[in-house]
């Protein structure tokens, strides 16, 4: 029962990454995910700083050149590092980041389940 629950949950997690069709939506999604480097905690989408304005143009150009979302992210992280992305990529630096909460969830669930089963007996 528990395994089914987890599989179901993972499926839901993955259905999250559906891309949107129109170019405007794409630009909006990308720039919302980019961190403005010269601001204190704002996305490029929300910021009006010079850097953000230019970056929005660059993203628009790249979309028109036909690059995909991931390619645009690669282009920018090559120039600015992973810090510019708000959605942490899934690489060797971030395995723990993504897995630790799920691990805690699993451990907590196991402890509770064990105690409940113990009582049943």
């Amino acid at each position, binding site marked *: 029962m528990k395994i089914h629950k987890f599989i179901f949950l993972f499926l839901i997690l993955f259905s999250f990454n559906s891309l949107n069709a129109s170019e405007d939506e794409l630009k909006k999604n990308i720039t919302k995910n980019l961190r403005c480097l010269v601001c204190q*905690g704002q996305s490029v989408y929300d910021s009006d700083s010079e850097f953000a304005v230019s970056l929005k143009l660059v993203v628009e150009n790249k979309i028109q050149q036909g690059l995909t979302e991931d390619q645009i992210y690669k282009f920018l992280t090559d120039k600015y590092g992973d*810090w510019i992305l708000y959605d942490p990529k899934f690489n060797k*630096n971030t395995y723990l*980041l993504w897995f630790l909460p799920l691990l805690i969830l699993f451990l907590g669930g196991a402890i509770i389940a064990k105690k*409940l089963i113990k*009582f049943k007996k």
Partner: protein
Amino acid sequence: MIYSTIGYYSLIFGLVVSLPIFFFSIKNFKNEGIFDSKIIGFSFIQLLLVITSFLGLIISFIISDFSNETVYNNSHTTKPLFYKISGTWGNHEGSLLLWLLVLTLFIFIFLLRSKKLLKNYRILTVLFQQIIIIGFFIFLIDSSNPFNHIFPTPTEGLGLNPILQDPALAIHPPMLYLGYVGSSIIFSSVLAATSLNYISKLWATHIKQWVLISWLFLTLGILLGSIWAYYELGWGGFWFWDPVENVSLMPWLALTTLLHCVLVLEKRSTLKSWVIILSITTFTLSMCGTFLVRSGILNSVHTFANDPERGLFILSFLFVLIFVSLFVFFVFHKSEKEEVISFTLFSKETSILINNWLMMYFLSVVLIGTVYPIFLDVISSEQISVGPPFYHKLIIPFLIPFLIFMALGPQLKWIKSSSLEGKKYLAFLLIISFVISFVIVKNFGNNLLINTILIGSALYLFFITVRDFFREKTQNFSQNLAHFGFSLLILSILFNNIFSSEVITNLKVGETFKNEKFKIEFNDLKKFEEKNFLSFKGYFLIEDNNSKEKLEPELRVYNQPNIITSEADIKITFLSDKFITMNTVQNEEYFNIRYQVKPFMLWIWVSVLLISLGGSISFFKRKSL
């Protein structure tokens, strides 16, 4: 000048008073007699001294006494009186003085309200709280003195940031502190109760009031912060998973979980370990949050001056407290027979336990997301950002079971529910919720699967709580109100997300923007001279299918300090907000206009108020035993 001097010496004397408090407490603990009223007396004196010190600072601000360094850095003669006063706690030193005030006030109220409880318990609580109080006294006097003297006295102050002059922002810190710092009492009393093996049903009833107060203020404090962010910062959002926001959310999650555990403890004498651990965790998170925000270790929007030296003190103090609490827990807490679960799978306790488990998971997501970049940077010098997508991906899927258990839990009985009452009706409501949700998402939204299930679950909770308002069987009105408020909150946020629309365009005066949804006319731009800024007001007429609306966003050019702010104009209605901001563009003739329609914003605020109302009703309920 004299007020600062009085303020300073009050602080010193306040610290000195801990000596008699310690002396008489320890003496009273050892002897057999009744509670020594001198302890209350000295606690009161300590409180009075802190109040005096705080008043000394406030008055220094009001009279613009720039010989006081804090006043010089954070105030200005032309500031309106209200903001001069609120400037007192809007800076690092003053806010720490506010911490001290709440710490001493709450322990005094605790002593007054616990007269019927065990003498040694009261004494130990005072002692643990004194450790915290002394730590803050030392921190203040040594490295964050609000009464530093500067000579020669400047004629004018530096502190006139207009973004900070806002009513919501003025009340937001005191509210938050009543919440955060209020949890110090929970911390101290839990340690005291654990040491004396005093944790019981009776004790739970007593501590519940403190948990409710702390939780209530923290909820309202967070609400005020979000409201301010929405109205002032101009991006139309109210939560950004910024470290500073996360730092207030974490104790809130711990506190909410604690509240539910205390309720179970009160009814069923179980989950004791949870109560102890959560009480320690809540205050630890508050202190940890203070550390993260004030030490400069994180990059975020907050405006407190950052100082690594202060950070080191808070860090060390925090870990001293953690070790003390771990020591007390492991040495004194006896895992008794009551720790064994005495309820079945199909009971109210189980659903509370499951939702507590989920809330602890949410807490760990926020905690890990906030501090992971620090760990990564120190260990491997790699810098990454953790932003909204991370939190959304990990939290949203689990909101679904969370909402459903919240709906079903109150329907179950304590210990054992042989069968679910009205099973058919509950299943029927579930199906209806999902059908309605499906229809809405199909027609208006995207991400069909996840949104349908999410909205469906929230609707389910909504219908169940509404139904329960009308049922005679429902005994717990405050709980129902709070859960109803939560369902409304989730629904408002989801609908806001789905139905929001936005237009960003560059216009100059006289131009009009048009698309299928709206028409935006930029009719006029007028210049006004105000007391300390130059105002440029744009006059816009917005037309959509239903209505015409006049909106007037503003650009303010301040000269002291030299900044430009953009003031949004927001038309609030029952169903949605119309939100417009205007910003300059490189080419001076054009302005960047951002127009958003944000449905259900008002309901987001109202739902949090309803949740708080539920909590406060519970607080004022007297048990007619």
